[in-house]
């Protein structure tokens, strides 16, 4: 009986997530289109609303090419290794007070583990393809992901110090109060670094050197086609939504209402927490798209310098500053 509830819960998370991924691709093309004074997809269905469905169906019927020189087994297993952690990480995300599939004590550690596993799929994909572009893309991607993983980890240490718990629901509870009690304010540098590292971790523009269309064509997935390519695509967008959800959970109060502690609190008391959570996720996803539309791509040495010589020193310093804040019990956050 319990197993049925668990499976039902998983379906309730995965199906909306897949739909969000589909419509995130649509939103991306539309929004970037408008930012570049185009109108984006507008042919399939009213205003192009059916475009993602059409894309998915098209990809299903496309040929899956397995290059002669590739390691067939690793080639097929790599996309599965990328999508599984991108989905499984959602198990510990609290959507609303009490609405969490696995309310575990080591939630944040689990997230850190899951987001690190994805890089294996990328390395395996690049290696198994046995193509120069794929190999270069995988090398770049691996070095980039591990570099930004450190800055991300240090940012998480700051969150842990402020919240005193690894459990994501308790981290949200620790931000209870008002919009100024949310961790974005005392952890402002860490929040900025966490989000930018998140953009880098998901290989999104302006850190998309692993895919760099204009230099190494598509990077690690250049040899992939059809559904296998679609899985990589799905995983990338699921990871974007995950980073947006984590940023809102850790720094922007998750399901907490932004009107808490103001005169509007009772007016908006009827709005479910899930609504605020989705609004926050959508806002951070907009930033992902906005970055892509406005910033030129980094050069590889600039990328490495930003990760190692800017982000890591700042996070280290802020961890020390934060421990002083906590020691002197700085109000209103650390009373």
């Amino acid at each position: 009986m319990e197993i049925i509830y668990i499976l039902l819960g998983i379906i309730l998370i995965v199906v909306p997530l897949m739909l969000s991924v589909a419509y995130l691709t649509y939103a991306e093309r539309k929004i970037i289109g408008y930012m570049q004074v185009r109108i984006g997809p507008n042919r399939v269905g009213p205003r192009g609303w059916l475009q993602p469905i059409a894309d998915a169906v098209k990809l299903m019927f496309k040929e899956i090419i397995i290059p002669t020189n590739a390691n067939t087994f690793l080639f097929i297993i790599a996309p599965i290794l990328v999508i599984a952690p991108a989905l499984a990480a959602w198990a510990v995300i609290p959507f609303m007070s009490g609405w969490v599939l696995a309310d575990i004590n080591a939630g944040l550690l689990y997230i850190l583990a899951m987001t690190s596993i994805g890089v294996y799929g990328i390395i395996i994909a690049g290696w198994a393809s046995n193509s120069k572009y794929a190999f270069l893309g995988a090398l770049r991607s691996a070095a980039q992901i591990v570099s930004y993983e450190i800055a991300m980890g240090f940012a998480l240490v700051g969150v842990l110090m402020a919240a005193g718990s690894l459990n994501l629901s308790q981290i949200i509870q620790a931000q209870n109060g008002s919009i100024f009690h949310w961790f974005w304010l005392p952890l402002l540098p860490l929040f900025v670094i966490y989000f930018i590292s998140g953009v880098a971790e998901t290989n999104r523009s302006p850190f998309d050197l692993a895919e760099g269309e204009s230099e190494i064509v598509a990077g690690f997935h250049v040899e992939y086609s059809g559904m296998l390519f679609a899985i990589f695509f799905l995983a990338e967008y699921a990871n974007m939504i995950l980073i947006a959800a984590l940023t809102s959970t850790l720094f922007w109060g998750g399901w907490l209402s932004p009107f808490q502690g103001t005169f509007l609190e009772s007016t908006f008391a009827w709005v479910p927490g899930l609504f605020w959570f989705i609004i926050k996720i959508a806002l951070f996803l907009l930033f992902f798209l906005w970055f892509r539309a406005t910033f030129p791509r980094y050069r590889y040495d600039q990328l490495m310098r930003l990760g190692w010589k800017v982000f890591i020193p700042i996070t280290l310093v802020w961890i020390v500053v934060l421990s002083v804040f906590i020691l002197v019990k700085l109000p209103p956050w650390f009373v």
Partner: protein
Amino acid sequence: MLDLGNYLPILFFIIVGLLVGAGASIVGFLLGTRKPDPEKNSPYECGFEAFEDARMKFDVRYYLIAILFIIFDLEIAFLFPWAVVFKELGLFGFVAMMIFLTILVIGFIYEWKKGH
């Protein structure tokens, strides 16, 4: 405190994640056309014939970054439990971690001066 029952959904979620990936691949293999062709199956190099094996030598600095990553990731693994209980540890925990971070920073400065 530790309830293993809470971890059951995670096991299921990982299995479902693998199944989603495997299922999508199977759908692709079943529905997709299959017309192999030696030209089509050769590695993509912008239209040129592939002229050497792709498993070439790569810059050793990629390897160094991986090693540096392991060191720093271990530091994070040490910082995590400390950060969770920092509020209870108080001044003692602060001093202990500052000593640890100082050693870390000395290593970091060394790497920086070496110039990787």
